């Protein structure tokens, strides 16, 4: 099987859709649907499926039905690249949605770029993702912005003077956002008193937190995923740290509360949109989401997944074809597209310019705090 895959990679890949002009339009989505980052992939997929169902109910695009092919990277390093090769050589998809954690997109993007296959990353915020080439886009903000938002929030809203940073060393998202936070927080007159590191999948953070506690920070910023974040909150509280803890959008998952319980009460994170937003696009999306997924409440990643799919459909409609070059140009010229997470304009670096929201955990539920514009 693997040999076949390798052989198929060696063959020249014609990328016109001539052979399948009458069949369904195939679009791939990859993400973590199982494993420790599953909350992101599962939420995004629900949003994407909703968009596909709607489009197909309305008769598809360009007179053809849409077919979604999803692949699970099991939250494992290396799997996203394998999936990317499969999408390119076996499934022959016309475009790809996905990549939640930046590390997945960083693996897959070079392969799509080489194959000249447009990819729209859903919630990968590391700047390097779209730097992979002109075929790589995203529908979310980037970490230099998110890091600045968090630094401003820590300084102005939490009135923190001394911050501690806890970073996951083998997660490019975590390292990137921590770097920006440090710069911005220091520039705003704050002091980063201690920086500690852990690895992906670690479960014991007491050593790092004990060192952090001795440095007497006002706040702790953890820049990695919810799985580690929830355990960090529990252990920080057990060690007697009483100040606020906060994270980036990688903290957004129902599991943060499920695992963290009482310990995550009063913690904050920044993310792409709030389901409590009163914007008609968001209300409308939530209504449709409830209908499709038995009353389940979407988070902002689900909304971003929905937006990524809609943005791609819009580009296919405008391009009038699924050929890769015109489709790429159509995505690149997206301007003022109104999605559930707000107006999306793709800038010259193929990123979306969006505002960020701050969410807190209150009485075991997520609650909206404030919106920060770029």
């Amino acid at each position, binding site marked *: 099987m693997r040999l076949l895959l390798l052989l198929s990679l060696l063959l020249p890949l014609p990328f016109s859709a001539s052979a399948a002009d009458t069949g369904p339009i195939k679009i791939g989505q990859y993400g973590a649907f199982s494993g420790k980052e599953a909350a992101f992939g599962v939420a995004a997929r629900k949003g994407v499926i909703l968009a596909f169902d709607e489009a197909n109910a309305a008769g598809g695009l360009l007179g053809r039905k849409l077919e979604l092919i999803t692949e699970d990277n099991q939250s494992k390093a290396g799997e996203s690249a394998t999936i990317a090769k499969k999408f390119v050589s076996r499934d022959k998809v016309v475009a790809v949605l996905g990549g939640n954690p930046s590390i997945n997109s960083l693996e897959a993007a070079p392969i799509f770029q080489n194959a000249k296959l447009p990819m729209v990353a859903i919630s990968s915020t590391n700047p390097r993702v779209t730097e992979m080439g002109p075929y790589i886009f995203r529908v979310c903000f980037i970490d230099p912005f998110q890091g600045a938002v968090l630094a401003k929030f820590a300084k102005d809203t939490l009135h923190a003077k001394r911050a501690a940073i806890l970073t996951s060393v083998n997660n490019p998202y975590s390292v990137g956002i921590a770097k920006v936070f440090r710069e911005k927080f220091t520039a705003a007159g704050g002091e980063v008193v201690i920086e500690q590191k*852990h690895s992906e999948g670690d479960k*014991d953070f*007491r050593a790092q937190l004990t060192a952090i506690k*001795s440095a007497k920070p006002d706040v702790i910023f953890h820049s990695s995923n919810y799985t580690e974040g929830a355990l960090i909150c529990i252990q920080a509280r057990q060690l007697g740290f009483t100040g606020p803890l906060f994270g980036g959008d990688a903290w957004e998952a129902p*599991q943060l509360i499920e695992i963290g319980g009482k310990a995550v009460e009063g913690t904050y994170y920044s993310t792409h949109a709030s389901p409590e937003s009163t914007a008609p696009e968001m209300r409308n999306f939530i209504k449709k989401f409830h209908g499709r997924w038995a009353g389940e409440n979407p988070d902002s990643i689900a909304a971003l997944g929905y937006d990524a799919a809609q943005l791609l459909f819009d580009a296919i409609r405008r391009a009038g074809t699924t050929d890769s070059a015109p489709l790429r140009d159509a995505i690149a010229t997206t301007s003022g597209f109104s999605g559930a997470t707000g107006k999306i304009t793709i800038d010259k670096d193929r990123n979306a310019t969006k505002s960020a929201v701050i969410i807190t955990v209150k009485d075991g539920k997520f609650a909206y705090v404030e919106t920060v514009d770029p």
Partner: protein
Amino acid sequence: MSEFLQQLINGLSLGAIYALIALGYTMVYGVLRFINFAHSDVFMVGSFIGYYLGKIIPENTVWGGLAILLGAMLGCALLGMLIERLAYRRLRGGPTLNVLITAIGVALLLEYSGQVFFGATPRTFPSVFPSANFSFGSLVISSNQIIVIVVAALLMVALQLIVYRTKIGTAMRAVSLNPKAAQLVGVNNDVVISFTFGLGSALAGAGGILYALNYPSIDPLMGVMPGLKAFVAAVLGGIGNIPGAALGGLLLGTVETFVNGSQWSTYKDAIAFAILIIILLFRPAGLLGKFTVEKV
């Protein structure tokens, strides 16, 4: 100073769990002279038994917690004996390498059938024991950490009593010394080996519950790293030696915690394993192990 003491407490409670798992490796090695790699996955199954029992037994009660602990130990003991009966017994007497590879096979079987039956997504482990934090000045110790250390210590004492003060313990030591001679004097090797697996796996089950109490996010691959560390702890203390495994576990947990709390935390595993290599260079049989020349 208080930071040092706090790290020591953190390290000891982590080390106590490593020690519990290490005991299982060491016991099986002591009796059968092979490394049971499936042991770390029995540990994982222990956590999941606790997770499912937690749904029917009321949370946050001491008796409920003890019932879950015993349930997981019993379940794991049965699983360990079953693995021995189905996978290892037929291979006894053959080359050790065959059993070793079978053990790796059983480990992978447990990990990946775990992903099928339990799902690959991390689960939240219920808080089975009532929890509280106690502070002594700036030192903080959680009730879960105390439970880990106390339960681990009690189980190790019980194990020592079983091995040195009971008939079956004597039989275990006899089989360990010379299986053929033990059989000649009327020891039923099958029963003794089965019992060894049961006992070791019960400790892994207890380790699984204690680990999940402190790190309440469990998944089917959770046993891999702690299992590896515990194996290292067993070798460090002198494999086949019960107090050695306990000492190795505590030492490894403490070193790891201290490195983790310093600015070299990225290298924590590298440093922990470097220490292992250095100790083995000077004491090839481990800290408490006795170096024996194999008789031809």
